[in-house]
């Protein structure tokens, strides 16, 4: 019951292994769960989960696994004992520390403790502490609200772990959902590269000591330039039209990028639907910048991030002069402009707020052939950033 639960977690992508299972066995042995499912829920959560992004998975696995277990709780312990015995045999795979840890247990002593506690459990259970809500209909009432109940002297109350798990309060922290400014800032933070250049203002202690020693003890100060971040980023954002539903999402990304202190330079431009000869410095399209000028300004070492839904009428992308603005330069197809952007920069990526399942059968397909595309979620942003930080690669190698 306890081991399958660990596998249930694994199947949901929560990274739990031997270490966690042994830890759980140890805290259960110390009686931290108070012989109740609620206690087990709290303790298991603390030991098995290492990141808030997995809390929701944990709740779901817990729900699936422990719904309607009522009386089986005793079995949990027996199985745990069996498991501990097994673990003792299969110790070869363990590290020294783990072995030490297991050897502290005397199996008989352990069994005695467990039986004692099981008896306690029965008494408490009979005493009317309904720790699994069988009525199950009122999510709050007497147990739900007591979820975070603090016991200043008083008793714990009838809160049920199943009910707690049912509430799925950690859903918002999943990392495959769309994200807030903070998460975006975290994602972007990985996009940095430190180099030493510029004025020599930092004392290089090791070199100073070396030089001083060579100089027969006369002080010889060696200076070096401080480590600075050297990442330059261009953010190209699609605004208006079909992007309106995602305006808040894009504005959060914009905020996060602006706030990021680890970019040496951040340039933000706007476009509508597709990039043609010009991009704009403001979202109202009053300050145009010619793409050719932009490319001339920014070397290939800039990282290009395009944010857009890549949805448009096919002619806007594929026909020359698809843009309304009639200029000489706009006589080139949108897709050609996109390709020239992709060719100019060493690393580029396209973030798409549209859910991934809608990425087929429209202009997104064409654009995906030009740019590496990632969904605008915490996971997608992370992947995009690691794609950007890799060095030069064979173009279009997928």
């Amino acid at each position, binding site marked *: 019951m306890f081991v399958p639960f660990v596998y249930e977690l694994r199947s949901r992508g929560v990274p739990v292994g031997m270490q966690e299972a042994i830890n759980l066995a140890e805290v259960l042995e110390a009686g931290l769960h108070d012989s109740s499912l609620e206690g087990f829920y709290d303790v298991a959560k*603390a030991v098995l989960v290492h990141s808030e992004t997995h809390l929701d998975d944990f709740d779901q696995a817990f729900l699936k696994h422990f719904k309607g277990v009522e009386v089986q709780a005793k079995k949990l312990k027996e199985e745990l004992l069996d498991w501990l015995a097994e673990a003792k045999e299969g110790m070869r795979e363990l590290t020294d520390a783990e072995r030490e840890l297991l050897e502290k247990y005397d199996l008989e002593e352990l069994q005695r403790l467990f039986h004692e506690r099981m008896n306690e459990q029965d008494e408490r259970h009979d005493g009317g502490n309904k720790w699994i809500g069988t009525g199950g209909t009122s999510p709050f009432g007497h147990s739900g609200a007591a*979820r975070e109940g603090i016991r200043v002297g008083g008793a714990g109350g009838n809160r049920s772990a199943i009910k707690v798990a049912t509430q799925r309060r950690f859903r918002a922290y999943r990392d495959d959902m769309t994200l807030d*400014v903070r998460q975006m800032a975290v994602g972007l933070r990985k996009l940095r590269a430190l180099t030493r250049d510029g004025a020599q203002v930092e004392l290089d202690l090791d070199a100073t000591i070396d030089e001083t020693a060579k100089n027969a003890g006369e002080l010889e100060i060696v200076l070096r330039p401080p480590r600075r971040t050297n990442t330059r980023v261009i953010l190209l954002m699609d605004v208006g039209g079909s992007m309106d539903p995602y305006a808040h999402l894009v504005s959060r990304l914009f905020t996060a990028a602006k706030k990021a202190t680890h970019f040496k330079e951040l340039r933000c431009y706007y476009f509508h639907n597709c990039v043609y000869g010009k991009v704009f410095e403001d979202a109202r399209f009053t300050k145009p910048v010619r793409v050719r000028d932009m490319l001339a300004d920014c070397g290939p070492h800039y990282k290009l991030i395009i944010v857009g839904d890549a949805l448009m009428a096919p002619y806007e992308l594929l026909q020359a002069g698809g843009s309304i603005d009639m200029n000489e330069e706009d006589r080139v197809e949108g897709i050609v402009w996109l390709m020239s952007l992709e060719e100019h920069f060493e690393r580029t990526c396209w973030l798409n707020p549209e859910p991934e399942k809608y990425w087929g059968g429209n202009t997104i397909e064409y654009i995906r052939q030009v740019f590496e595309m990632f969904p605008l979620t915490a996971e997608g942003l992370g992947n995009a950033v690691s794609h950007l930080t890799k060095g030069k690669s064979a173009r279009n190698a997928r």
Partner: protein
Amino acid sequence: MTEANFTRFRGTDTYLTSDSLEAAVNCALVLERPLLVKGEPGTGKTLLAEAISSGLGMKLIPWHVKSTTRAQDGLYVYDTVQRLYDSRFGDGDVNDIRRYIKRGPLGQAIESDERVVLLIDEVDKADLEFPNDLLHELDRMRFHVDETGDDIVAKHRPVVIITSNNEKELPDAFLRRCVFHFIDFPEPDLMRRIVAVHHPDTNSQLIEQAMKVFFEIRGMRRLRKRPSTSELIDWIAVLKMAGLTDVKLDNKLPFLGALLKKEQDLVALADQMSGGSRWRS
């Protein structure tokens, strides 16, 4: 390890805990592993370490991590510059290297004669590699001073509390060694009790109204930085000082600066209040 020699953490008079937080702290105590606490800013992550220290009667050694902090600084610092200086100007015995080894917070905690609580505050502020560099020391609770050849081993494994604001992803190897707890935002019920602890003699009508306004503001989707517990407590303190007895959510909310810290958020709130939809949310 039996229950007899193990004191459970139950929170303190001024720090209210939930069952799951207590469970996490106790797991960390039993497993003798670091407790990693995450959560929104202002939900009392740092205060937890103080509460554990006073609740269990152990000394607290805080280590506030900054962006320039290196793992080595936590163990010890070899003051080479001082030694160089002394060798030139002849102060003291330069040959005794131990005089120039200064213990950092982690070093002090390991060396201490009694069990202490070590707080590693905002571990995510430091460089990406920082947590990895600490792995061995936190695991074994021992370290080696290269300059003198001393091996320092903990007599009592310190209780280690690590807080993170989630500014950086922590490495998996580090996470695996920690007991994890995510301090969730308190429900109104718990919030009421937390406020009562901090403002015991305040007009209950004011508190009720302030809480109502607070949760309404928190519920607004357009805010970039949502106010949390510490902001509410500050705000009620200001309201109390100003002698106000009632507040309600309207255009002229007093001392809004205590709750909302971003200009855009103030604009968004004003916008919402006037019923307009100037911006999409």
